């Protein structure tokens, strides 16, 4: 009986923590549990959340992606430049047409996928650690974004901005996109052969290979997915603010995304990841961010608390998911 209870607690720990945090925040500040504040919270976390779903796939296979923020910046700048007014003096591309938003977004996503394909191929075939490959990619993509435009890409068209700042039935589009991505991630992980293969690769890549899984091809797909999420994040970031600054856009977003996936129970030793967990991780960090700001807590204190939560969650997770000797 007590064993059962322990198991229940450890399986649902993360949700209990989230509920506790929400209760504490609601008591501490009357403005926390209001529709408008919760909307702000979700809009604030959605982009990092989308990237968290990306990087969670990489972590699941014992990898990581440090290039998310930089890819977002590059894609935001490139696709943004395609939807600036043609008569705009500060236009990034001196000549050229103004594309309809869907075309610009599609080009941005394709660019992201291509970058992911390169990163994935390097990781799969050279077997260098993902940490190194994506760190390199981060530097390259950020620099490329700055070379593409040395000033913010601004005055983006309204239709382009719809995804980032529009609303449908009062719900921010950005939140709707987040939910759609969550559902797609869940579907991939739980209901497709690709998703199952990722668990196998993360648990024991040698054994996965022997079982007939094409490890390299799957790893490439993982990083394509990661960069695709980063690209989508870049489009949303640009759309949310109406301009995209290559030097600051998406800066450090990969760290928040990794933190959310990690707090959400995605194990860095591979083979463990659940979409509901990642959602909880995103919300926990979001509630802390938002709640402490409302309470007027100093930024540094907020970061200290977040740091403790991230480390604590990994300690707990290691206890639970040890690969036994």
């Amino acid at each position: 009986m007590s064993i059962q209870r322990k198991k229940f607690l450890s399986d649902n720990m993360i949700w209990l923590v989230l509920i506790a945090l929400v209760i504490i925040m609601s008591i501490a500040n009357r403005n926390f549990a209001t529709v408008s504040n919760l909307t702000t919270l979700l809009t604030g976390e959605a982009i990092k959340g989308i990237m968290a779903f990306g990087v969670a796939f990489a972590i699941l296979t014992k990898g990581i992606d440090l290039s998310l923020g930089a890819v977002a910046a590059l894609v935001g700048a490139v696709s943004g430049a395609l939807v600036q007014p043609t008569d705009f003096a500060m236009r990034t591309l001196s000549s050229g047409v103004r594309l309809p938003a869907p075309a610009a977004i599609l080009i941005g996503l394709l660019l992201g996928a291509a970058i992911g394909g390169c990163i994935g191929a390097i990781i799969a075939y050279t077997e260098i650690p993902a940490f190194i490959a994506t760190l390199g990619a981060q530097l390259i993509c950020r620099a490329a974004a700055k070379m593409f435009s040395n000033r913010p890409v601004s005055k983006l068209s309204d239709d382009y901005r719809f995804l980032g700042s529009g609303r449908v039935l009062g719900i921010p589009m950005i939140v709707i996109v987040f939910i759609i991505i969550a559902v797609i991630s869940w579907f991939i992980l739980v209901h497709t052969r690709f998703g199952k293969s990722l668990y196998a690769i993360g648990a024991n890549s040698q054994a996965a290979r022997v079982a007939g899984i094409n490890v390299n091809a799957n790893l490439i797909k993982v990083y394509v997915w990661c960069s695709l999420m980063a690209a989508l994040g870049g489009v949303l970031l640009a759309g949310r603010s109406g301009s995209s600054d290559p030097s600051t856009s998406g800066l450090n977003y990969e760290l928040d995304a990794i933190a959310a996936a990690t707090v959400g129970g995605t194990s860095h030793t591979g083979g463990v990841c659940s979409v509901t967990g990642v959602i909880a991780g995103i919300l926990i960090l979001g509630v802390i961010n938002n709640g402490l700001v409302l309470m007027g807590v100093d930024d540094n204190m907020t970061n200290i608390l977040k740091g403790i939560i991230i480390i604590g969650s990994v300690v707990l997770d290691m206890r639970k998911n040890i690969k036994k000797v």
Partner: protein
Amino acid sequence: MSEKYILEMQGIVKEFPGVKALNGVQLKVRPGTVHTLMGENGAGKSTLMKCLIGMYAANAGTITYKGRAVKYKSTEEALNDGISMIHQELSPVLERSVSENVWLGREPKKGIFIDYKKMRQDCLELFGKMGVDLNPDEKMKNLTVAKMQMVEIVKAISYNSSIVIMDEPTSALTDSEVEDLFRIIAELKAKDVAVIYISHKMDEIFRISDDISIFRDGTYISTDQACNLTQDEVIKRMVGREITEMFPKQECGIGEVILKVDKLSSGKAVKEVSFELHKGEILGFAGLVGAGRTETMETIFGMRPKTGGAVYINGKEVNIKSPQDAAANKIALLTEDRRGNGILGILSVKFNTVVANLKTYGFPVDSKKMAADTQEYIDRLSIKTPSMDAQIQDLSGGNQQKVLLGRWLLTDPDILIVDEPTRGIDVGAKAEIHRIISDLAKAGKAIIVVSSELPEVMGVSDRVVIMHEGRVTGVLDRCNLSQELIMKYATKEEVESKSMVREGE
């Protein structure tokens, strides 16, 4: 049994979520004896030992060691107190050398630096004393499972413990190394060391045991001196009913050639190996450790690069470069290295069963069918698991092996290669696996059985290929099989000397 005991365990209880692995178990070990633990897969033998050395905390029970009550919190504590264990599942540090593995965690130091020279020398000395032929500088990952096992054995003994626990030490060894081990055990006994020995191999148990304790489903059944027991009696107590140890060979029609291997080479491990495999045939592979049997199978299966020769399936040349290609050609390989490239430890029994067969579940994957297939094999192979959602690493070693066999049977291969298929499997389940293999052959499948257990190879095979140092040295028909002849081909020198004798005649 009047001497006092070096170790007494009483009323040990160990519960895991969903299973009571040990239910009030006792064990009394005399110094200077070999005390064997017997029981079916999942009876709780390994768990009992892990409770002793502090890997698991028992829920209840007392342990008395050398007259004092002990309760170790870690394996280090137990080691320092003179109890070492060779684990059923190897855990070598693959990227390090043999000597570094032996001295792991207690490296000799010179000042603050590791004294590699001394480490190497001490290692050579140990190997020399135990008659083990290994290079201390070799990287662990280049060793075969059998050699890794020898390293583990040397390591456990190097602690000069008063109790050495050996959990299925011979499951990966061939006869000659088993002899080495038995010699080592005899020396330990002479030094008044107690050896707690776990194995499923009846003949060796009766050779070396002084006492035998029997367990069933987490309960203690009995302890007797080996001389007062018979094999049949032990089996009866283990399973609670009588069974025959060997499944009788079924005669079945042998069809045309399905697999033809022609001068296959892979680096230094496999040299110009040629053989043919027919539909409905069970082809055994015998040889000593290092004979290249596993490597040959891995080359056929696309796990290691082919450096020469050709493989034909149904008369057509195939180029298999990866296990994926092998699967597309309907070949399955149950590998020898269960932990290294077999189980997906943290994933469920269900996942482990279906993983080689993922492509048959469609899009989106049919989870119901996965569960149904898993249940089918849990029943068919009587796999003992709390549920199909349990992590496979929590199953007993033998039950993990059964899950892996199920994984490959599920892919419905035309050519099934099994490398040490009954490693760590109890007597009852072994007969069952032999029956399954035999039934598959009867249904026209072609099967290769690599095994270090001669009785097993001889019992199930229609023909036996014998290898020595990467080459095929002989092929024997079932009617010509004898242990002596196989050993002669397996240690090639003797065959050569024999042919020289012939020439002399």
